[in-house]
């Protein structure tokens, strides 16, 4: 995966959001406690996929990094190889002028007993020099360049999912939705009717008695979602900053 995640083609043509990703995303939103925008979700999904790359580039905590040096007997984890753990059993000088001076360690993996070789002691950036300028991109650059493709996938996949609801640019798992029943919506109607003015969801919530521990953002999303599906109301603001008015007065 990590290799193809470097390419535009992967994020444009092959990146998919699987059911298990939807579940993870729901859990993340539950922890986060607020709705997220398409862009934020795209960045979360990309970060999640690229986190082994980030860990590997950082090194430390026993994670193999090609710029570090190791000794026989050191134990290393390989985030880019699904977290495989192995022990350095041999070291030799590397042989290739392209990379300058470096060493090669032989690592025997605990699980399979198989031994594979890895580069160590490389100068920073030397792997970029070895390929082309496009052969390696930092995870942050990948997110910046390709998140628009992932946003399209997010919109398409979550739009078809029964588990997510959308209002404007924001998404919320259905299971986090606060129920605004007809009685609540009647109060909103009365408030707008009396003032004769369009009202923001935060204003409406000051008078609607909702007993729920959800965050203010989730309540506002839920109210917006409920009013958008009730023909009595019309949004005269924007999708990002909605203001609700009555259809019969508009």
């Amino acid at each position: 995966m990590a290799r193809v995640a470097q390419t535009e083609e992967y994020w444009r043509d092959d990146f998919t959001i699987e059911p298990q990703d939807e579940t993870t995303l729901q859990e993340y939103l539950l922890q986060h406690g607020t709705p997220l925008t398409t862009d934020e979700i795209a960045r979360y999904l990309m970060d999640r996929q690229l986190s082994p790359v980030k860990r590997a580039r950082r090194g430390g905590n026993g994670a193999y990094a090609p710029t570090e040096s190791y000794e026989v007997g050191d134990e290393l984890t390989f985030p880019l190889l699904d977290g495989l753990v192995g022990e350095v059993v041999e070291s030799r000088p590397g042989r290739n002028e392209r990379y300058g001076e470096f060493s090669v360690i032989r690592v025997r993996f605990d699980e399979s007993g198989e031994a594979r070789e890895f580069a160590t002691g490389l100068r920073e950036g030397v792997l970029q020099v070895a390929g082309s300028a496009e052969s390696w991109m930092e995870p942050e650059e990948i997110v910046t360049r390709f998140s628009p493709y992932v946003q399209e996938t997010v919109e398409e996949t979550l739009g078809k999912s029964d588990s997510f609801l959308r209002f404007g640019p924001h998404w919320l798992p259905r299971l986090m939705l606060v129920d605004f029943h007809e009685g609540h919506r009647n109060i909103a109607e009365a408030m707008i009717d009396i003032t004769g003015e369009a009202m923001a969801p935060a204003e409406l919530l000051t008078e609607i008695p909702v007993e729920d521990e959800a965050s203010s953002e989730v309540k506002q999303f839920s109210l917006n979602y409920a009013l958008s599906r009730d023909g009595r109301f019309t949004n005269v603001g924007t999708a990002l900053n909605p203001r609700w008015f009555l259809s019969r007065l508009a």
Partner: protein
Amino acid sequence: MNFKLLRPTTNTLFHIDWSWFERNGLDVQSLIRNQLSPNLLRKFADGHSPEEVDYIDPTTGEVFRLDSLRETILAESRWEPDYINNSLPLMQGVFRVFLAENNRPLSPVDLAHHLGRRDPETILRVLTASGVQNGVVPLRK
């Protein structure tokens, strides 16, 4: 035995069996050399025979000991814009993809993706219809 079960499909993994060249008295070095652009080919002119070097996978840091011809394909040729192009004969394109992927096992579906084609069935036919070509064979489990 049901041979239908053994027949390769568009999802069967293939790879280059390097020993096939030796068994058939063929020169694999010259075939690989033919995939290099004239620019890169100059490196191996004047009797410079390929030597064994360490190729480092730029993503994982894993080291592979390869002859310098294959290493040059991985480190340089594969990034050239016309390394894979529409005018290549299909079998040559397949061979180039395997070289560029360090002989990672790939199915006709994968190969079609790498070659920018939509007909993995054609690739499967070419790989299986008239005996082994360029050492590309189904991967034995």
